[in-house]
């Protein structure tokens, strides 16, 4: 085994190394790909021990709205006022939601499948949803755990469908309010209710084909019509809370990106999504984003091309496409090409320093470092090139944060650095650490060393 390759696998494709982890990496590529097997993903999600679902979130929010309504009414008795308690419901929902976000981070810190969690982060940002109100506060983190994390081992089309039919996405991009003008509900409203093309546009622009792929306004509108009726219901049979409402669905066949789709209720939209997922433009768009994320901001075209070929051969099988990326020698060369994202920096710091919790906590720390989860504020997600998180201001932010968390590190700094970086630890860093005036300062220097900052 090439030890350097093992460390590269751990840093570039994971959250850094540890003594135990390095021992497990006999064949770096095999080690990485095993992490996205269906069995391993089931095991990882089992360890997450999820106890908060979309269905619960939707039901809790329905209760919250009901309580709010009651509170607005002039109450007949003060007793009535006491009983409604929308505030308590809201707090309980927010607590569950925040717990979920913190739990995925603390699990990623300790997981023996760090590459899998990096991929979850990547796709979670690709299908970005933001908290922009109480509904999204309840729903946003569930998109990641319910639609993305379980679907890394399969086809992109499966993940796409899971995402676009998930309540978090349907609510975030307003599709649950979009109504076919000629549907039963549309006709009944006499033109007052109608289409909202927000989700349809972002599906094409951000989630699949990519901007400039050649689709036009008519394609967007047609897709918007095809997915009318895709909505949300807490009492729905499906676990996620997805509900297809035929009475809102625009009747008729649709013409999207040069292909006609016959009428067919919910299946019409599903078929379009599947075709979009398997389109070469989508293959190119998502492959380029993967290479940009994992390897280099200037994604080498040759790797992208190889991934697109595999994507088209396998109809977008995610592990196969990733395998094509890992097969390229460029995945293993030009090391330290990119600064870690704020999230990678935080998780790899906690991993390297054996920190089980932080103060400010994980979410607040990420807000300080610049990428608070589910707060990108745009369906495009956080930009994925380092100029967005490695400027002078962010650098000082990292130094101050590193110095702050270094206070909580209990172990011997040099041991931590050697475990985390192995042969990648630069002599200069080791020397600087050994001369540091305090343990805290030594840890700060380690965390801010180029070989820990980049990967």
């Amino acid at each position: 085994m090439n030890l350097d390759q093992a460390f590269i696998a751990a840093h570039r494709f994971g959250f850094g190394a540890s003594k135990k982890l390095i021992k497990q990496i006999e064949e770096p590529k095999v080690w990485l790909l095993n992490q996205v097997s269906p069995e391993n993903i089931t095991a990882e999600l089992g360890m997450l021990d999820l106890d908060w679902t979309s269905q619960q979130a939707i039901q809790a929010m329905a209760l919250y709205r009901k309580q709010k309504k009651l509170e607005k009414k002039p109450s007949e008795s003060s007793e009535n006022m006491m009983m409604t308690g929308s505030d308590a419901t809201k707090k309980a929902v927010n607590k569950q939601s925040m717990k979920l976000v913190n739990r995925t981070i603390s699990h990623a810190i300790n997981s023996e499948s760090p590459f899998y969690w990096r991929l979850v982060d990547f796709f979670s940002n690709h299908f970005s949803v933001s908290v922009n109100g109480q509904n999204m506060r309840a729903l946003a983190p569930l998109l990641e755990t319910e639609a993305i994390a379980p679907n890394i081992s399969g086809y992109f089309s499966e993940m796409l469908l899971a995402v676009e039919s998930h309540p978090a996405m349907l609510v975030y991009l307003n599709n649950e309010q979009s109504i076919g003008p000629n549907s039963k509900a549309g006709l009944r409203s006499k033109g007052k209710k109608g289409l909202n093309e927000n989700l349809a546009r972002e599906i094409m622009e951000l989630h699949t084909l990519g901007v400039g792929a050649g689709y036009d306004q008519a394609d967007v509108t047609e897709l918007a019509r095809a997915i009318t009726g895709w909505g949300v219901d807490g009492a729905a049979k499906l676990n996620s809370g997805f509900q297809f409402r035929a009475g809102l669905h625009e009747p008729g066949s649709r013409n999207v990106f040069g292909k006609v789709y016959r009428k067919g209720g919910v299946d019409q939209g599903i078929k379009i999504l599947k075709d979009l997922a398997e389109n070469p433009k989508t293959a190119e768009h998502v492959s380029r984003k993967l290479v940009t994320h994992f390897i280099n901001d200037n994604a080498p075209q040759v790797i992208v091309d190889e991934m697109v070929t595999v994507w088209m051969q396998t109809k977008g099988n995610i592990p196969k496409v990733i395998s094509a990326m890992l097969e390229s020698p460029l995945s293993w060369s030009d090391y330290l090409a990119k600064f870690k994202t704020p999230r990678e920096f935080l998780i790899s710091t906690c991993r390297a320093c054996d920190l089980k919790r932080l103060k400010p906590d994980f979410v607040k720390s990420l807000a300080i470092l610049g990428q608070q989860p589910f707060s990108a504020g745009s369906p495009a997600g956080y930009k994925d090139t380092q100029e967005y998180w490695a400027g002078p201001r962010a650098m000082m932010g990292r130094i101050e944060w590193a110095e702050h968390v270094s206070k909580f590190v209990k172990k011997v700094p040099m041991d931590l650095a050697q475990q985390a970086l192995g042969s990648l630890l630069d002599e200069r860093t080791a020397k600087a650490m050994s001369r540091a005036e305090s343990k805290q300062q030594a840890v700060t220097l380690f965390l801010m060393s180029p070989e820990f900052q980049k990967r």
Partner: protein
Amino acid sequence: MNIARRDFIKGGMAGWVIAQSATASVLANTSTNNKSSKKIVWVMLRGAMDSLHGVIPTDDPDYMNIRGPLVESIKDKLLPMQNGYALHPAFKNCHTWYQNKEFSPVVAVASGYRRRSHFDAQDQMESGLDTTDYESGWLARAVGLLDGQGLAVAQTVPIALRGQTSSQTWYPPHFSATEDDTLDRLRSLYAGNEEFSNLLESAIMNRDMLDMDERSRAKPNFSYLAKNCGEILNKEDSAQCAMLELGGWDTHNNQATRLNRQFDILDKGLAELKQALGDTWKDTVVIVTTEFGRTVAVNGTKGTDHGTGSTMFLLGGAVKGQQVFGDWPGLAKEQLFEERDLMPTTDVRSWMASVLHQHWNMSLENIAYIFPDVQPIAQAIIKA
């Protein structure tokens, strides 16, 4: 004109470093060298502000038919301006400035971008070109010709301030300042690593210049950012221009309520900026723009979808106020862009170019370098 990309900025370390390319030296020779106290602040509204809800064409015969349901709650409280326009009631400060001849909106404007992606449209507007150059922003090109400096109130340098110019970024810090000793040790650790050395020096310079005051932990809302922006600009030898950003404008649903709040945030933030600028306000032009407008028609969810023509605001003591600039295209179906959106009648960049020409006295030749794809508006928009 082709704006040369620089190699060193690849990787995005756009800190304080000045380019040494051939283009840079040519520019230095032709630079106007009139670094002045005249400031420009650009406020970018991200998400596409609905201009038809902010600057209301009260005389347009089609307006109430189309937009009636959205403006029901405000239609009796509008703040009147000339020529049959009115401001949304949340723009209290803006309206006062309008009356004081320090505020003029421009109606029916757009950039050169004619599609409907927020992100592409914003990038292109920041770049100021017909096709986006991610490493060259219009504000950077402009302030570079003054040998000046730009300030971005953001964590990292936005496209508008990227280029052959030094630009600062400022954002509220969170922890106590790192000791000089630790910074010195990092300095020696990074010796020989150009990328990290440059980044560290920029980070330290940035901190020392901008965070001399009590380090605040306040929540960075728009008012707070605007106030600090004004205070930094007021410091001696500070930047000549700054960029502020405010998101939250993508009102696909429930627009009336959301824009009440958004307009209020914007209006109050601008007032904080004015307050912090103090005397400098009289030499300041604030430009407020958004990447594109929204559909003229109301959608099925009491909101509006991505459109084309929008509005921009010019305000500040230097602005020729109490005007409504721009030509109104009308709202009848055949007058709309693609029978859907407000038709832009002038380019946002023409007005920006005109601000540079009239406020910073930039030559037309220099303007052509900054905005190669448009001509400045000839009309007087800055006080003589």
